[in-house]
């Protein structure tokens, strides 16, 4: 007697990812897709993926999708959600996208308590464009536009978006997770589920920040990248719940 323990979710289309070997974008995609499937909302989900390595998300998620301009996914999602308040709307954004060019849009979607879920993939780098410094790049970390390592006096210290957005009243749920181990991956999935549930219950803006790797632009093997993330990113970006409105707790 055989029982399926793990199988590719119907939340994903039957297409291989274009991501680099070992890039954790793939894991995060799967988690979101699994949650949508398990919550039974694939047929009423509308996703928004702006530019970034995940720009082709519309080829992967098995639900309606909109590609958005760099940084503007929260505004696009706002437009969608206001039109379809009964649908499940999410954005899937990189750190360059969300924490740099799209700062105003995410802050204001959060402020408005826009009933959307943002999956914020923080890999401390601009992946798609070839490894430039992101606002989340760690001090001392090398990137193509910080070739001598990010200099705090020149470019400042990295921004912690979860902490920053948690100061607002609009967010119902904000948690930072990672996907470096099976345990973390399971925890990440729970967090994502919680965020979508809060959205469905109309509680407010929800965001899950996922610390992710970019082996290619970090110049590491995928396995090294996971370790580097754990040793360098988690200390600066502590995992945990940053905001849980009364009802969500």
């Amino acid at each position, binding site marked *: 007697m055989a029982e399926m323990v793990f199988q590719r979710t119907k939340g994903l289309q039957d297409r291989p990812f*274009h991501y*680099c*070997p070992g890039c954790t974008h793939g894991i995060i995609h799967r988690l979101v897709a699994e949650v949508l499937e398990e919550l039974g909302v694939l047929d009423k989900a509308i996703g928004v993926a702006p530019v970034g*390595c995940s720009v082709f998300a519309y080829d992967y998620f098995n639900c309606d999708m909109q590609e958005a301009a760099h940084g503007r996914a929260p505004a696009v999602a706002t437009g969608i959600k206001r039109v379809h308040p009964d649908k499940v709307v999410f954005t899937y954004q990189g750190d360059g996208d969300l924490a740099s060019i799209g700062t105003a849009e995410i802050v204001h979607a959060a402020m408005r308590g826009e009933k959307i879920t943002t999956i914020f993939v923080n890999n401390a780098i601009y*992946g*798609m464009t*070839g490894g430039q410094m992101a606002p989340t790049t760690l001090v001392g970390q090398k990137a193509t536009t910080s070739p001598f390592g990010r200099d705090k006096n020149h470019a400042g210290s990295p921004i912690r978006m979860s902490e920053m957005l948690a100061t607002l009243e609009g967010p119902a749920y904000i948690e930072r997770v990672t996907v470096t181990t099976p345990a973390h991956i399971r925890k990440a999935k729970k967090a994502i589920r919680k965020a979508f549930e809060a959205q469905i219950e109309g509680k407010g803006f929800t965001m899950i920040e996922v610390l992710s790797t970019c082996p*290619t*632009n970090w110049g590491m093997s995928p396995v090294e990248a996971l370790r580097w993330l754990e040793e360098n990113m988690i200390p600066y970006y502590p995992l945990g719940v940053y905001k849980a409105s009364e009802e969500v707790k």
Partner: protein
Amino acid sequence: MINERVIMAGFGGQGVMSMGQLLTYAGMIEGKNVSWLPSYGPEMRGGTANCNVIISDNPVASPIVTDATAVIAMNRPSLDKFEPTLVKDGLLLINSSLIDRGAKRDDVRAYQIPANEIANELGNSRIANMVMLGAYLEATGAIKKESVLEALKKVFGERKAHLIPINEDALNRGAELVKASSCG
């Protein structure tokens, strides 16, 4: 009068781009008019990459190679894609380590070069591209090996100067293969 229009193509990571740059550099060293034009796929890693190199006595008009005088195909998709762009009697260099077919056209000068195998023999899998380049130099006579070595020196700088001998070996091996084989 020289007017070389070369397409080099392969997987990302096969050193196609640097092979092209090296040849371009060598052309410049010999005082020719040169241009190098890359083209990437959307993938960051993996995917395909190719570049166009022009070396000419005249100023380079279009930097795009549409009718190639030589095609260096490092993998099968590249061969399929670029074989048709060769001019009649053009040079087709096929990396037979990874490509399981020969030339389809019979109006071109084709060589099958087991570049990866030779590179592995030489102890550095990364210099398959130099094997192909050696073959190209030999088959066309367009540019001197010395110019390529001089270009290499400039590109490598001191820090990597120790790699020059093995690169030269690779160039030589590629050249030998061409010398040894007859077209086909």
